[in-house]
C-alpha cells in the first residue's frame, strides 16, 4: 500500500546505492524533482534505465551517480548532444559509463515484459543493424510455430521505478494522462516505486472510465511535488520550458560550469 511521504524520506527509504533505477517519462512528466533528490542524497553505482536519457540523466551522470546506462536514445531533444553523457562515454569523466544500448521498440517491449512478469521480450526488431554486435543482451530466437526469427531482449525489472504524475488521492491512487510513455509499465515492472505528483486531491475526478490509474497497492511511495517535472512539462499544469533545454547546452558543455550550476541549483537547493 502506498505511503504518503516527503521526497527526502521516499528517496532515503527506496533508492539504495547499486540499485537498478528507472526514471521514466517520454519528454512529458520527467521526474526531475525526485532525480535531484537522488543526486542530493549522493547515491552511487546506479544502473540508470531510461528510453530517452535527457537533461536529468545528464545531471545524474555528470554528478557521478551512474555506473551503467540502459537506454535507446540519448540527447537533448531538438537541441543537440548531452555533453555530460558524452564526456563520460568519450573520456570517462567523472567515471566510465557502461552502456547497454537498445532501440525504442526493444525497451518498450522489455518494460511491458517486465510488467507482465516475463523473463524476456520477443519482437520483430534489430534486423540488419549493428546493435546486436555490440550488446550481448540482444539475441535472436525462432518462433516455435512459424520458424520466424525474432529478436529477444531481457525484460526490464528495476529495483525501483520513479515517475511523476498529475494527481494522487489520499489513499495513493495515481492518475497520469497525456503522453503516458512507459510509466505504467515501469512501475508495474519494478520491485519498488516512487511517484511524485503535482497535487494530492480528495477525488481524482476521472473524466473517463479508462483513465490511466495506478492503484495504490502498486506503488511504494507517493510524494506531493508541485512543479516536479520542470523543465519538462505536466499536461494540464504547465508547459515545457524549452528555453531551459536550450540554456542547458551551454551549462553542460563545460565541466566547471556544470558543477557550479548543480551546486547552486540542485545541491544547494532544498527539496
Amino acid at each position, binding site marked *: 500500500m502506498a505511503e504518503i511521504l516527503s521526497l527526502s524520506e521516499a528517496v532515503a527509504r527506496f533508492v539504495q546505492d547499486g540499485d537498478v533505477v528507472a526514471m521514466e517519462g517520454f519528454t512529458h512528466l520527467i521526474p526531475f524533482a525526485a532525480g535531484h533528490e537522488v543526486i542530493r542524497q549522493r547515491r552511487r553505482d546506479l544502473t540508470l534505465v531510461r528510453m530517452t536519457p535527457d537533461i536529468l540523466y545528464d545531471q545524474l551522470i555528470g554528478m557521478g551517480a551512474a555506473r551503467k546506462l540502459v537506454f535507446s536514445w*540519448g540527447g537533448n531533444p531538438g537541441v543537440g548532444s548531452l555533453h555530460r553523457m558524452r564526456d563520460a562515454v568519450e573520456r570517462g569523466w567523472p567515471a566510465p559509463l557502461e552502456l547497454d544500448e537498445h532501440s*525504442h*521498440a526493444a525497451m518498450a517491449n522489455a*518494460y511491458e515484459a517486465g510488467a507482465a512478469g516475463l523473463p524476456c521480450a520477443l519482437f520483430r526488431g534489430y534486423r540488419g543493424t549493428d546493435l546486436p554486435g555490440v550488446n550481448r543482451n540482444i539475441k535472436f530466437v525462432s518462433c516455435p510455430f512459424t520458424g520466424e526469427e525474432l529478436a529477444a531482449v531481457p525484460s526490464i525489472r528495476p529495483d525501483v521505478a520513479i515517475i511523476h504524475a498529475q494527481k494522487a488521492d489520499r489513499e495513493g491512487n495515481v492518475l497520469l494522462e497525456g503522453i503516458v510513455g512507459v510509466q505504467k509499465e515501469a512501475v508495474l515492472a519494478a520491485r519498488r516505486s516512487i511517484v511524485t505528483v503535482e497535487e494530492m486531491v480528495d477525488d481524482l475526478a476521472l473524466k473517463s472510465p479508462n483513465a490511466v490509474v495506478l492503484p495504490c497497492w502498486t506503488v511504494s511511495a507517493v510524494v506531493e511535488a508541485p512543479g516536479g517535472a520542470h523543465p519538462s512539462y505536466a499536461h494540464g499544469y504547465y508547459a515545457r520550458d524549452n528555453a531551459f533545454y536550450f540554456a542547458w547546452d551551454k551549462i553542460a558543455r563545460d565541466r566547471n560550469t556544470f558543477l557550479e550550476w548543480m551546486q547552486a541549483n540542485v545541491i544547494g537547493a532544498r527539496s
Partner: protein
Amino acid sequence: MNYTTAEMMTVAAARALSNDDICFVGIGLPSAACNLARLTHAPGITLIYESGTIRTRPRVLPLSIGDGELCESALTTVSVPEMFRYWLQGGRIGIGFLSGAQMDRFGNLNSTVIGGYTHPAVRLPGSGGASEIATSCGEIFIIMRQSIRSFAAKLDFLTSLGHGRNGTERAAAGVKTKGPTLGISDLCSMSSDPETKEFVVRSLHPGVTRRQVRENTGWEIRFAQAVEETPPPNQMELEALRELNERTAAAHGVTAGD
C-alpha cells in the same frame, strides 16, 4: 521569390507525401517536411510520432518528439509500447520519414557513433525508434543535408537497415518491406535503383551542378539517364513554410526544423 537550399530541401521532401499517407515522423528535418505537406497539398495526411500521438496536427514544429501540442492536437494518444507493438510492428504505417548523421549509397543510416563503438570520436543519440521504423514501415523516405561526411562510402555504424551493405540484405534478413525508396538533400532528389538498390540522382535542385553533387558525396554517385531540374518552391509553399518557421521560432525561440 528567393529561397534557401534548406527551404528547397524541405519543399521537395513535402511534395513526396500525399493526402492519404500514414507517416511515421522523425524529429527535425522530417517533421518540418511532413507538417509542410499537411499545411499545403496534403491536409488529410496522418502524422504519427513515436511518443504515441496519432494523427497529430501541431500549429508549430515540435522541439521534442513528445511536445504537449502533439498530444493536444492528436486524434488519440497511445502508450509507447502500444505505438511500437500494434501500430509500427503491426504494419499499420505506410511511410517512415527518417534522417541520420551518416547515410551510405544503399540508404543505410548511422545515428549511433562516429568512430569506434567502444571509444567513439562522437557519441550520437542512438537508434531511438529508427531501427524498427526502417524495417516495419512500408517504405522509407530519407531527408539529409548532403556533404562528403554525411554521405559516406562506409558507415561507422549501421543503426537502421536500408538495403544493407551490398544492396541485398533486406530479403536475407527476412524483411519484407520496401526500405528506402526516396532520398532528398539540399542538392538533389534521389530514388532507389530497382536493380542495384543504390540511390540514383533523379533531379538536381535549381542551380546545382553534377560536380557539386559529386564533391559532396563520399561514393561515386550515379545519375539517372535523364536528370531533371527540381521545380523551385512556389509562392504558396514558401509562404506556408516561412509562416510555420516563424510560428515555431516565436514558440521556442529558435527554428526547430533546422
